[in-house]
């Protein structure tokens, strides 16, 4: 039951962002699992392009918000302005009222502005000036943040980070992919020439079918065993929360669907594990923090399949 439309979407994105099959697949899985994506990476590795392409092939509206340190919540959510003609206040929706939002350099803004975005992400609605307005459906936030050691950043607290389903890194492309990029056509034009592969309604159906992917008792045992290990082993400061376990299962389901399966395998869990734990699990040994992949591999190898 492989879904050709998903394969086509992935192929489209991979044609524009080269050599990044895995992060691209993860970001699509994140979207299918109705989660939000956090990308931590240096500027210029294609974060914006990724968000743009995703919106384009899925036929979704796209807005970009550049976070700065002087940003206010109203800059994100919108503001009511007095209309002299009608003699009343008129609400001007902010850039968040769209289907795909790229929140660029989120950790440059003050916590106040950050939390305006994060609350909207969680509630999928905006309350401004006493009135609650629903955000469009589907709603997908891709936030990027600069590595936290850079100057002028307000690191997101753990509780806020937890609202992102996945955290991925794009990283530099390998030389062959980079060469192809340099030699190839202009990416902006390529994006503009893309046509949507599916309608937004179909995307919602796909999101529903992710929820129907079967997780057998043996697999749930495995997720629990992983969580139990993080909670007891001294390697981590605190274990995975039940919400983190739910996130792990949700992304693994989407990953299985992308693979054309109606059931989750331990391989799916292992594949998405680095992205799920990257912003949630803090190793006691701080030198390990930067290398998420090896931390995840250590966790996987420490827990036998039940």
């Amino acid at each position, binding site marked *: 039951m492989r879904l050709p439309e998903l394969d086509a979407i992935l192929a489209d994105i991979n044609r524009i962002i080269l050599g990044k099959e895995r992060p691209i697949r993860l970001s699509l899985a994140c979207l299918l699992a109705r989660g939000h994506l956090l990308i931590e990476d240096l500027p210029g590795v294609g974060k914006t392009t990724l968000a743009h392409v995703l919106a384009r092939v899925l036929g979704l509206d796209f807005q970009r918000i550049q976070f700065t340190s002087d940003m206010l919540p109203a800059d994100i959510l919108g503001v009511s302005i007095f209309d002299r003609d009608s003699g009343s206040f008129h609400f001007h929706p902010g850039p968040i009222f769209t289907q795909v939002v790229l929140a660029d350099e989120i950790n440059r803004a003050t916590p106040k502005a950050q939390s305006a975005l994060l609350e909207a992400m969680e509630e999928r609605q905006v309350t401004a000036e006493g009135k609650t307005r629903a955000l469009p459906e589907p709603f997908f936030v891709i936030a990027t943040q600069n590595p936290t050691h850079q100057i002028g950043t307000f690191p997101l607290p753990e509780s806020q980070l937890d609202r992102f389903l996945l955290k991925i890194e794009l990283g530099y492309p390998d030389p062959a992919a980079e060469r192809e990029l340099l030699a190839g056509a202009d990416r902006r034009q390529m994006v503009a020439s893309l046509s949507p592969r599916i309608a937004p309604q179909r995307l919602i159906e796909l999101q529903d079918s992710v929820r129907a992917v*079967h997780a057998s008792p043996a697999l749930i045992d495995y997720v629990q065993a992983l969580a139990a290990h993080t909670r007891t082993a001294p390697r981590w400061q605190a274990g995975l929360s039940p919400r983190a376990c739910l996130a792990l299962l949700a992304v693994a389901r989407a990953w299985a669907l992308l693979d054309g399966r109606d059931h989750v*395998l*331990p391989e799916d869990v292992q594949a998405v594990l680095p992205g799920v734990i990257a912003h949630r699990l803090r190793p006691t040994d701080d030198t390990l923090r930067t290398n998420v992949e090896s931390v995840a591999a250590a966790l996987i190898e420490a827990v036998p*399949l039940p």
Partner: protein
Amino acid sequence: MARINRPVSRRQAWWLLATALAAGLPLTPQLPLWLSLAAAAAFCWRAALTLRQWRLPPRWLMFVLVIAGTAGVFLQYRTIFGRTPGISLLVVFLALKLLELRAARDAMATALLCYFLVLGQFLFTQTIPTALLACLTVLITTANLLAASDDRPNPLQQLRRAGLMLAQALPFMLLLFVLFPRIQGPLWGIPQDRFAAVSGLSDTMSPGSIAQLSQSDAIAFRVQFKGTVPQQSQLYWRGPVMPAFDGRSWRVAQTLGAYPEVPYRGLGTLVDYEVTLEPHGKFWLFALELPATLPPDSALTSDYQPIAREAVRNRLRYNQRAWPEAIAGVDEAPGALRDALALPKQGNPRIRAISAGWQARHGNDGAAILAAAEALFSQQLLIYTLNPPLLGADMVDEFLFDSRRGFCEHFATAFVFALRAAGVPARVVAGYQGGEVNPVDGYLVVRQYDAHAWAEAWIAGRGWVRIDPTAISAPSRINNNLANAVPSGEELPFLARGDLAWLRELRYRLDAVTNGWNQWVLGYNPQRQRDLLASLGLNEPDWRSMTAVLSVLCGMVMLGLTAWILRNRLRVDPSLAAWRRFTARLAKRGVAWQTWEGPLAFAERAAKQMPVHAEAIAEIASLYARLRYAPGPRASEFEQLKAKIAAFKP
């Protein structure tokens, strides 16, 4: 250590109070009244402390109370050692400990005190209800002990955990019970102050003494016959023999062994049986007439009565054989015969006159006089009754000629009196007659209401002959039982009545259970242990081999329990078991499955290392992955997986 100092929660305090009640309440009949009241007051105080969240009493007050309680126990018994004083002291400590439940360690101390009190109950009674109650209390106490170290689970969970722990301890308990080297004596016997008053035959017999026993349905002893049970009329259980008569009551010979033992010759086939005698506080043992062998630590008196070396204060079990018929005492010592003729100088003129007539007519012909006496008894139409009228000074005359109503002791007294008056040596034998076979376990149960008295006459050339004068007037007493012999309407002990069949059935079953408990739990002694070990092929084991057997068996139980727990923990999915077989086969070829590796990932890796089998490996892996992780039952796929794995030969 922080755990030990954790404060006691309210819930825990309530439970501890309930446990203390369960452990202490069964002991109240043994405790002095003031102590029971004081303990009750302390319990109420505890309840108020928990309910109102009052402050705990100050330490100086506790100190005073401890001193006062100990002093009270000392003043009561003049000692603090021994069974009852010791238990009393424990109750004092338990009651006071409840008043200072500060931290988990106090809860632990309380639980341990409760264990001791449960143990203490067994020093007083060892019945099945006591044991059941003790099991329940131990369960609750254990749950409390668990709560003392971790009070997060709710009480039901604690009870379940405690039950599981006790169930796991059960095999060890049984093993230790069966195999631990035994010391002689009962498990719970404590020599002092036991059996202050137990019912049973005494060493004197006066009118009414046996009739009183007939109101009791307490068990005197149980008998297991190795062969068939003899006829009811043959079941004369010989107890104290009473040759001395003072005109009103009979008593046993003052000095045992005053006369040389007279050998006797048994006739017929030996009856083989085992008696389990309830404690009665006297020296005599009961044996079917006449004993051919004797229990250990006992002797036979010159009047053929087995006597134990020590008074029977604990339940006693012994094997015996008996001759159904015997010729005994043909050469009886003259002194013994003289004793058997002694009568008070005065009283009972009417029977004396009749006896004198017999003597004049038959001279020394004892058999003829015996026949005359039997004829007199049957001619008088005596009535066998549980409620005989009170008799005056000339009790034999009054019984035989006026009231004509009496119980077995009247019959025996009058008969022996008549024979002695006619010059025939005679004596009264007390004991039990009959018994009832419990159809459930086949044991013959002899109860106090089976107590009986009969006569023995010495006839020249024949020795001692048993005559049961009761049988002359009320043959059904001997052939059936008490209920059939007494006139209807007389008050009988509940269990002696014949009606209510279901009640009888229930009683048989209950009694069989009690008997099994007595035989195999309370009466499990070195002899039983030896027999049991012999039946297991261990003949005369010494303590070393016993210890070895015990350790081996304990180890086996431990292994079994561990295996059971592991099996429960790793209840393996059949497809997983098949997968393990498959991966084990690959591991032998150098492609080891990592336990964390997903099936498809492993298949991919294995296929790279063994390209020849790539297809088979991929097929097996995807089958297994579907079986284990995909929804729905897939019986046919499982068969396929098994077949593929069976065919897979790397």
